[in-house]
């Protein structure tokens, strides 16, 4: 076997130089950029991890905020429902009170109207009764319209107090009498006799005619008035019906 030692030496040197060339100009830059990229990737991963942790934290925070908001919402809803219920109760109470008030007012009005209507009906009834009675009395005979009331007038005068009776026809003054119609002399005489009897002294009467009386007599004194006429009776009846109550 023949070996060219010069070539062997040159090739050894060449290969060592080539090792240096490739190491210096190829492997080192390439390995450097790979290392740089790995560092950049690691840095990016680290940043991404930090960002992920941050995002996780924010997500947890957001979830907490959401739960807090839900809870607050629930509380607000509960409070609103409570307030609404209270307000509803209050409004219902006020409405009920108002309705009661209106109902009471309506009852009062109805009662007042009923009473007014009743009074009006009574008044109409009394007026109708008076009218009917007046028409009926007009059918009576004329002498019954006066003569039938003489005794009644005398009885009424007799029921007057002593002092009042003494004033009637005192000092010869005529007794003022209203009659429903012109009295006949006989009726005047009978009246004077009846009055004289109850008064205890002779009296004369001065008669004035008042058709409003319908029938009967009425005596007018200084401090007393004795009404014994049909108009006076009808007035009493009407007052009794309408509740005015004055006799």
């Amino acid at each position, binding site marked *: 076997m023949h070996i060219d030692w*010069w*070539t*062997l030496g040159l*090739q050894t040197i060449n290969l060592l130089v*080539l090792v240096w060339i490739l*190491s210096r*100009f190829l*492997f080192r830059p390439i390995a450097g950029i790979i290392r740089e990229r790995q560092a950049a990737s690691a840095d990016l991963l680290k940043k991404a991890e930090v960002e992920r942790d941050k995002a996780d934290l924010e997500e947890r925070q957001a979830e907490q905020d959401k739960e807090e908001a839900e809870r607050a919402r629930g509380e607000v809803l509960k409070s609103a429902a409570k307030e609404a219920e209270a307000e509803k109760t209050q409004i219902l109470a006020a409405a009920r009170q108002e309705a009661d008030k209106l109902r009471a007012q309506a009852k009062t009005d109805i009662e007042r109207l009923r009473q007014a209507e009743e009074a009006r009906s009574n008044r109409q009834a009394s007026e109708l009764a008076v009218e009917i009675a007046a028409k009926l009395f007009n059918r009576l005979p004329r002498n019954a319209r006066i003569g039938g009331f003489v005794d009644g007038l005398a009885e009424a005068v007799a029921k007057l107090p002593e002092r009042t009776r003494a004033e009637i026809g005192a000092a010869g003054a005529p007794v003022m009498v209203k009659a429903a119609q012109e009295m006949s002399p006989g009726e005047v005489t009978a009246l004077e006799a009846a009055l004289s009897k109850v008064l205890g002294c002779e009296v004369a009467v001065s008669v004035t005619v008042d058709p409003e009386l319908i029938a009967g007599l009425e005596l007018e004194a200084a401090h007393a008035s004795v009404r014994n006429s049909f108009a006076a009776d009808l007035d009493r009846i009407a007052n009794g019906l309408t509740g005015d109550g004055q006799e």
Partner: protein
Amino acid sequence: MNGSPLELEPLFRIGPVPITEPVITTWAIMALALLFSLLATRRLELVPGKLQAALELVVGAIDHQVEEVVQRDPAPFRPIVGTIFLFILVANWSSLLPGVEPPTARLETDAALALIVLASTAYFGIRQSGVSGYLKSFAQPSWAMIPLNIVEQITRTFSLVVRLFGNIMSGVFVIGIVLSLAGLFVPIPLMALEVLTGAVQAYIFAILGCVFIATAVGGEAASAGANSSSMQGNST
């Protein structure tokens, strides 16, 4: 290849130094490697282009292989192992160029490569364990193994030379013979096979060199040694 494959005719001389064809081809490869390295690494970016990505893939693959064998940071071993692999690969494939004889088809080039591996083994072994520690490693597992370990160092280096030389030289010879006997396109399948053989031989030489270095620095010596023995047998 006109004469014996073991003989070299100097193309010219620089003083007393004969300059042969393998040296010229190696110089050309070195010049191309320098030019390519300068151009390829001129603008390296964090977001790589196609060429940068391919280069990173190659460097990454070398680092991965070295790391698997040495079981430690591949950076100190990358220049030696990577250069051996890339040089043998390019040298083997240079036979595809018309008129170019691959330097690895010459015994001197393969011997130079094996010497560099041997020197690297000693260098990394001493750097790792010191001179005495490295020398003591020859006495493992006992003093009686010293002669055998020394012989192993020599024989495995010699086997590197012979394997690479035999495979590449034989391929060149076969293609040359077929080309002289048959037509122009007949050797093409053999040349394609030679491309595969060249890549495989580059890989085997680089990995075996790496295993020897790993043995010296205390890597996975036993298994790698066993693997290297089997690979030697298969490739030859």
